[in-house]
């Protein structure tokens, strides 16, 4: 414990107490009663105060910078075209890919997001996120058995996305879709999790 600290915080009592306990005799170095506000102690307090102000001025941009992702990029949803609906045969489920619209130039392939497009019939679709509802691993579609299987913890889903077996707490995450001029659009933009399922 350094002297300026004890002096600035609680004055002599705390100082002498800790002094008695830790280093016998050190209490004698401190004045026995409340110290008068001297020029030195005033300047010291002024210094502390100025530094506190400077630190908070610095802290605002730093903290804002680090946590900006949470408030700036909220509700990142956009309509993204997946291509002509004719490329999705009826009664089949196919893998489709889109470029995430919220991207930086150095994202590389990580911004290519896959999803499973099930064309039930005609204009009726279901678009599932690739991520297993259990812990986000990529589920794979098996058309022969009509099941999605997850390679991580064995979650299995039926073709409509409902849980068939395994640990997932809910069915596959489903994106909104719309059909405009014969093209299929998906509303995506963020990795779905249990707290924000698309």
């Amino acid at each position, binding site marked *: 414990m350094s002297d300026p600290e004890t002096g600035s915080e609680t004055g002599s009592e705390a100082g002498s107490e800790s002094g008695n306990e830790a280093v016998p005799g050190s209490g004698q170095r401190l004045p026995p009663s409340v110290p008068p506000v001297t020029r030195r102690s005033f300047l010291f307090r002024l210094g502390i105060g100025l530094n506190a102000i400077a630190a908070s001025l610095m802290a605002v941009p730093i903290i804002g910078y680090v946590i900006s992702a949470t408030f700036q990029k909220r509700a990142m949803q956009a309509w993204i075209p997946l291509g002509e609906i004719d490329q999705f045969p009826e009664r089949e489920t196919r893998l489709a890919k889109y470029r*995430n619209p919220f991207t930086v130039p150095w*994202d590389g392939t990580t911004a290519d*997001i896959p999803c499973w497009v099930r064309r039930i019939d005609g204009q009726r679709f279901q678009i599932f996120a*690739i991520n297993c509802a259990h812990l986000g691993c990529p589920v794979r579609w098996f058309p022969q058995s009509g099941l999605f*299987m997850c390679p991580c913890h064995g979650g299995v889903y039926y073709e409509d996305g409902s849980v068939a077996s395994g640990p997932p707490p809910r069915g596959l995450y489903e994106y909104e879709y719309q059909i405009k001029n014969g093209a299929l659009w998906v509303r995506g933009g*963020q990795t779905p999790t249990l707290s924000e399922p698309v």
Partner: protein
Amino acid sequence: MKLKTLGDWFEKRLQLEPLYRNSAGHAIPRSSASWWYVFGSATLICFVLQIVTGICLALVYVPAADEAWNSLEYLNYQQTFGWFLRAVHYWGSNFMVALMTIHMLQVFLFGAYKYPREFTWVIGCVLFLCTLGLAFTGQVMRFDQDAYWGLGIGASIMGRIPFIGNDLVYLVLGGPIIAGETLSRFFGLHVFVLPGLVILFVVVHLRLVLKTGINDYPIAGKPVDLDHYDEEYEALIEKEGIPFFPDGVDKDVIFGALVISGVLACAALFGPAGPNGPPNPTLIDTVPRPDFYFLSLFAVFALLPAYTETFVIVYLLPVAVVALFAIPFVSRAGEKHPSRRPGAVVGVLMIMTILSTLAYLGLSSPWSPHMDAWTRDPVPVAMVKGRSPLALQGAAVLQGKQCRNCHSLDGIGGQRGPDLSDVAARLTNDQLIRQVLQGGGNMPAYGHNLSPSEVTALVAFLGTLKPAGEPDAANAAQRVLIQ
């Protein structure tokens, strides 16, 4: 004589002697210069090795999502000794986690966390968490498919936290998806924040070791007495204290050299880890697995009943961490020697058994479907020969409908469901049909995806699967009817 004068000249200016006396030369009980006391310094040696190799790797590695994977490939195949430094860094991390764990166990079993060394333990726990953080962020630096989906798992876990889950996901990923900012974030953590914290807390840890003295070798029947421990320890140092350097350091030095040799040998023999496929989420032919330190956690997520998962992840894990921190405050005094602390020993054995069993299970992942088994694992020849055309079609159905992804034949295939090699001795045809159509017991119902002919063929094939001489399964009603 001249040398001595020169030495004195420097000593007068550098004042190294007091530094030595207060640090490396501090007195330790002779009994503590033991082979049991080498793991902490070995962990520190691993950390130094990690810093050196980590700096080297950072000279080449590109911490950008689009180029990181390419630079790893470059390190592996083009950069001189690049693969070796990657391997040393990888094995160094494995050794560091392992040695740190052993160090913690030793400290716990020897009661070294007790009065007056509570804070040494607390700081050690902080170091433990920082090291696990380094391990996880390091796995992300190997920016391949495992890293990508590992982050996905991390995000999903955080997404389960109520209220702030989604904010945390955004905070950690640096955006709505795993992408460029995610890697940069983890690079910052792995290279600046966490190593900085480790250095800081290692300094605090070592200072506490110096100030409270190294733990005296525990003696059964000599409990820590809060009122007299300090005097006893001082007396012990008086009686048999030796300076740590040079008298007590020999075993640490030897073991440290062995550890470094072990890391280098593993690196030379087994090489670096990965990278496997590039971090492209559209490549879904992937089976993500974490590095070994997280395999047990990975297994927990598969084995917990689904309804307990969020509870365990969100509440129980933090409670376990708090409990780890609280150990020295719950048990401050009393016996140190493990032979007088059967509860502690049993607890350690239990936890280690559980963790290693889980890690083993995580490695083999019997709960995961084998995604390619249906086209890769042949039907055993003995189960093909002599079968009727219908049964052969049934075997083709078994393969073609991905049953094999979860069920094995003769031990080959998925392990999620039971091996079907003797299923005819366990289930009657009716039971087989019901199980296939309705599923149950963690098996999907296939009723909508099998035609009646396929079910008939499948059951005809399954009906042939039993060991020679074993009777067909029969239910009670059938037995009555037969009699």
